[in-house]
């Protein structure tokens, strides 16, 4: 099958998003389902068909989401309304919109730096947590245990107090 000439192809837009917390264990498919659920609940099936969202790149706390041109505003709204992926609380923060993936990747090289710097066991308010440290002073605490594990977002200063 011959590929369509460029002038007859559908125009796309790409949105670079950051996922918080970056240490969370989810994959691109989970993210796609969460975005799909959010967009369907906001704009219905017709809107979803018009937007055609797709997770084209995923990894290290960042993702690139594709949509059709002129629907990037609706996709941004849908992304802002995502609060859970696979029943885990996440934040999907849109950073930049572009017409090519290359420019987003170039931008990403400049902003990267939210990867975990290390883990250690800590005691906080009489309970045991695994602390995930980030560059700067951010610390995420994951409570140890089998169920109802609490997740706390602190800074190194909070731990020292």
């Amino acid at each position: 099958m011959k590929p369509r000439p460029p002038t007859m192809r559908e125009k796309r837009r790409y949105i670079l998003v950051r996922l918080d917390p970056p240490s969370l264990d989810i994959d691109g498919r989970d993210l796609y389902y969460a975005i799909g659920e959010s967009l369907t609940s906001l704009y219905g099936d017709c809107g979803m068909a018009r937007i055609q969202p797709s997770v084209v790149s995923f990894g290290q706390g960042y993702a690139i989401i594709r949509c059709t041109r002129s629907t990037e505003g609706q996709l941004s709204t849908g992304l802002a309304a995502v609060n859970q992926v696979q029943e885990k609380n996440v934040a999907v923060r849109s950073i930049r919109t572009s017409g090519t993936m290359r420019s987003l990747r170039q931008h990403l090289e400049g902003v990267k730096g939210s990867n975990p710097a290390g883990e250690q066991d800590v005691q906080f308010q009489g309970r045991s947590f695994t602390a995930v440290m980030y560059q700067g002073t951010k610390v995420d605490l994951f409570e140890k245990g089998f169920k109802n594990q609490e997740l706390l977002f602190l800074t190194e200063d909070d731990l020292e107090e």
Partner: protein
Amino acid sequence: MRYTDACVYPHPLGDSSLRRMALEAGELGFDSVVAVGAAGATIRGVEIVGGTLLQGRDPREVQAAVRRFGQGSAIPMVNAGDYTFNRAILHIGGIRVLRDIQSSPRNSFDHILSRTAAERQVAVDLDISPLVRGRNYVRQKTLHRYADLVRLQSRFEFPLVISSGARSILEMKSPRDMVALCRLFGLDEEGVGQALMGISRLLHPEKPVEVVE
């Protein structure tokens, strides 16, 4: 230009410490946040404005609470109730923000109260969290109420503020995300910008004559 998230709930009301919320707010593009139950401070360049959230059925109880807690630098905010309650609240001196209107009964904030809010410079808060957490009826009702408030605000020009209502850094939204979400109920980018500066205007109102030097 000072963008303020008009209401966040740091630890122990939420799962994120005040310092972490301030860090996150700075990264997201805010200059200040109103933190419920916190004292005023500046953390890494982000100004923390203390907020006191008051809730009651009887306006007299709220008035007493304002006298007790509202004397400091914290911003007194009251959760809205029915029409009579809201009317009484708007006439109590010291209340700066009326919030949670989306949960109050229908017609509890009309054109008459809009005019009163404008005269007394009491801001109305648009909490973004029900749009993110809510689904179906809750979200539809919130969108309808907010669209109505935006219509009233454009006519009577009472102060409007926007809050994330975040109990976690994961629920905090950037101004860009707030613009995207506010578009759902008809508030444009300029309107969102004005609303994000609403707390700054409440704290430092423009005076007819100002001594520059």
